[in-house]
Every structure is written in C-alpha cells, then in structure tokens.
C-alpha cells in the first residue's frame, strides 16, 4: 500500500467538476511534481489530498502508516497572513499543534522540535523577527519549518516558489530536494515551473482539469504531453 492512492477521484466546487480522472500513487521517498496551467486543478487536488475537500467520486486513500494528519502542508500564501503580527518562532511552533490533541499548551519537546527545524532551514537568526517584516523567501522558509514540525513523512507544497526571485527560488528547490534525498521525506509539490519540476522530481502528474499524465519523469519527457508542455527544451 502506498502513502497516498487516488482511484478515479474527481473534485468539484458546488457540483462543477474542477478536476477528474485522478489515478496515481505516492510511495515513500517519492518526489512528485504536479504540473499544469493556471486553473487546471492543481490546488484543488491539494485540498483533496489534505481532506479539506471530499472527492465528488472515486476515493483518496492514505496507507503505509501515514495518517492523513501527518502531512506537512505549505499553502499558497493568503493576503491576510502577509501583515500578521507574529514572530517567526510562534509561526513555526504552531506546526506542533496537531500533535497536541486537546492539551492546551506546548511542551518543552515541542519547543525543541520547533528550534531544530528552524536550525535545519538555516533561519535561526530570524527566530524572533516579526513574520510580516521578513522577505518572501524568508517567509517561505518559516512556513516550511512549520510544515516540518507537523510531519516526518510527507510534505505537500503548493507553489512554494511563487513570487520569489530566481536566486531564492533555486535555494528553495535545493532545500526541498535535500529534505527528500537526504532525510527521506516524501515530497508532493505543485509547480508551474516545468524545467525545475523535471530536473528534481522522480514522478510527474500532469493535470488539465483531468489527469493527462502520471508516471516517472523520464517517461514523461518522452510522452506526448511532456513533449508539448516542456517544449522539448528539457531534453536538451
């Protein structure tokens, strides 16, 4: 059994299907990139994987010892968060919330884990800075540290590099790649940067309001969908 299995799943908003025909698996250690144009249903699928939306038909299963709450999530940022008065540490620590259950306060262990993840992402010096005063790249690292506080198994990232400058983008990709290759985390990432997707990912899921392709990255580059979408550039 895989971490995540989608069987003929479709998701809809108020009866209108946004994405359908989803058949894929995510296994431990995979690095899956979900690609597709704007409005092709990538974020919708992410919401479905997080159980924020119920499938209209078909099913989404989690298995292999993965509880659906053990998914670390990096959302597409909302405007409200951008001017939120909170320290980076407060934000990272809030990733431990789910593990608290009904207990009201964080334990020393929770604080330690938060600090470890802050260190892991190299943002120790930002720890007590105000979240809204950080740069876009720094904010993304803080949110990534928070996601790591929630999981040791699977990271789900929705356009983690949107709005970042090229240098910071590459740095972000490097960090995510490291977490996957060296620390064994499974990564599912939405991206519309196809070049980087095929460079790092082990698997590609291509959406066009329906599943167009799912499989190994190498096979994707040879497929029709892959060739059109990458414009053949990735082969060079």
């Amino acid at each position, binding site marked *: 059994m895989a971490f995540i299995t989608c069987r003929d799943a479709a998701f809809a908003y108020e009866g209108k299907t946004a994405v359908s025909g989803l058949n894929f698996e995510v296994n431990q250690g995979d690095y899956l990139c979900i690609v597709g144009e704007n409005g092709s249903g990538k974020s919708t699928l992410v*919401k479905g994987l*997080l*159980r*924020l939306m119920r499938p209209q038909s078909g099913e989404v299963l989690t298995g292999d010892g993965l509880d*659906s*709450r053990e*998914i670390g*999530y990096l*959302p597409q940022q*909302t405007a*409200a*968060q951008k001017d*939120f*008065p*909170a*320290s980076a540490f*407060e*934000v990272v620590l*809030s*990733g431990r*919330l*789910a593990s*608290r259950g009904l207990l*009201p*306060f*964080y334990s020393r262990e929770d604080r330690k884990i938060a600090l470890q993840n802050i260190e892991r992402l190299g943002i120790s010096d930002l720890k*007590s*800075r*105000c979240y809204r*005063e950080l740069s876009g790249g720094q904010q993304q690292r803080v949110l990534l540290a*928070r*996601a790591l506080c*929630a999981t040791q198994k699977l990271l*789900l990232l929705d356009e983690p590099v949107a709005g970042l400058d090229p240098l910071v983008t590459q740095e972000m990709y490097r960090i995510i790649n490291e977490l996957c290759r060296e620390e064994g985390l499974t990564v599912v990432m939405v991206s519309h940067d196809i070049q980087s997707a095929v460079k790092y990912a082990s698997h590609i899921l291509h959406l066009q309001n329906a599943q167009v392709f799912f499989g190994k990255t190498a096979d994707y580059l040879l497929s029709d969908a892959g060739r059109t979408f990458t414009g053949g550039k990735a082969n060079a």
Partner: protein
Amino acid sequence: MLNILSEMFSYTFLVRAVIVGLLVSLCSSLLGVSLVLKRYSMIGDGLSHVGFGALAVATAMNAAPLTISIPVVVIAAFLLLRISESSKIKGDAAIAIISTSSLALGVVVISQTTGMNTDVCNYMFGSILVMSKGDVKLSIVLAAAVLALFILFYNKIFAVTFDESFSRATGVKTSAYNMLLALLTAITIVLGMRMMGALLISSLVIFPALTSMRVCKRFFSVTVCSATVSVVCFFVGVVLSYIYETPTGASVVVVNIAAFLLFWLFGASRTLFRAKSANAVTEDEQ
C-alpha cells in the same frame, strides 16, 4: 486625584460599573486581536445591534435583560459567522441587513412600550447606572469563563487565526474554534453593551487590537498589550467621564482613540528612525 478616586468609589453603582467594565474591556480586547486579524470586525458590530433589539424586547416583556439577550446574541453570532464564511451571499451586506433590522425592531418595540424616552438613548450610548447586583455576579462568572477559555485555547486560536487551512489540514477542528470565538464575543458584547451602548461597544473589540498592532510584533505581545491598553483606557475613560460629567461609553472610546493615535505615532516614528539608522549604517560601510 486620589480624592476624586475615593469619592468615585464611595458610590456602589460606580464600583459595580467599573468592575464589570474592566472585565468586559479585558475580554473584548483579547478576542479583538483574533477578530480583527480574521477580518471579522463587522461581526462584533452586527452583534451589538442584535443585542440592542434583544434588550428592547426583554424590557418590553419585563424579563431579565441578560437572560434573554445572551442566547439571542449567541444564536446571531453563529448565524453571522456562517454568513461571512459562505461565499454565496455577500457577507458584509448580509451583516448590515441583520444589524439594521434588529436596530429598527428594537426602536419600534421601545416606542410601543415605554415611548421614545431616555431608555433609547441609554441603550444606544450606554449608561453607567444600569448594573444591578445580579448583573455584576453574572458578569464576573461569564467574564471568568471567557478568560479561562481564551487562555486554554490560546495556541489553537493563534493557529486558526494565522492560517486556517494549515490548521484544518493538520486535523484541528477550525470551525469549532471559530464558533468558540463567536460565542465568547457574543457573551462579551452583551455584558458590555448596556454600559458602553449598542453603537459604541464594538470599539472595545476593535480599538485595543489595532492600537497594539501599531507597536507590537509578536502575537503574544500584541495580545498582552491589547489587554493592558484596553483596561487602562477604560479606567481612564470612566474617571474622566466622572470628572467632566460626560457619557461613560463615549469617553472610553475617546480615550481609546487617543491611545491609538499615540501608538500609531510611536510606531511610525520608530520605523522612520530604523530606516534612517539603517541608511546611516550602509553609508558608513561605503
């Protein structure tokens, strides 16, 4: 100064009013931080108008005002929350409709029973003379409950306020915490409404949070600062209203405005100063 204070507190009705007012200021400022950040400020305003209608009806029925208006406002709170969460109806318009309807209903009921007299004015703008002994007891109990729940759920309220979808994804029951927030707000608003007035009570929710956000950078310090500002402003407002014989609710709001401007100036000048010194540093390096 001390003379005035001891003179003030020789009146039992004033002591009662100050006790209730301080508790309400504390609760409203704590909840306000979350409400303002979640863009729910309008809910507070809507609730106070619903409270006005409920109070008017309670008076007409000769019923105890709090026992009627608390459940009514709590129900309204859940309704308003639903409305502002659902994307189908325009949230702010729906809230405006509910609050003006309750206001109109309240005025009609009052005019039919006691006539448009000082009662209406008291409901709208508050009166310090209205607290009975029973009200004080109930207020203390409810305020203590609001405080306890806020402290127990502080971490969850932070997470849900900061990022609802992340919290929901990691298994936090966010709608339950939104409901909790609405419930606590409803209770707080009803408790403070008769003293501060239906038109003014929501300022106790909004001002302290906005004021402390001018200066504080952490959620925890915003919360603590907001509580402190609110309590101090209330006390200063009551004392000033006693000295200058101005209406209590309005005086408290005026003091809150002054505090806001003060914090805003301080925050702005600090940012300016920082920017200047940062420039100076880079110039030094060159």
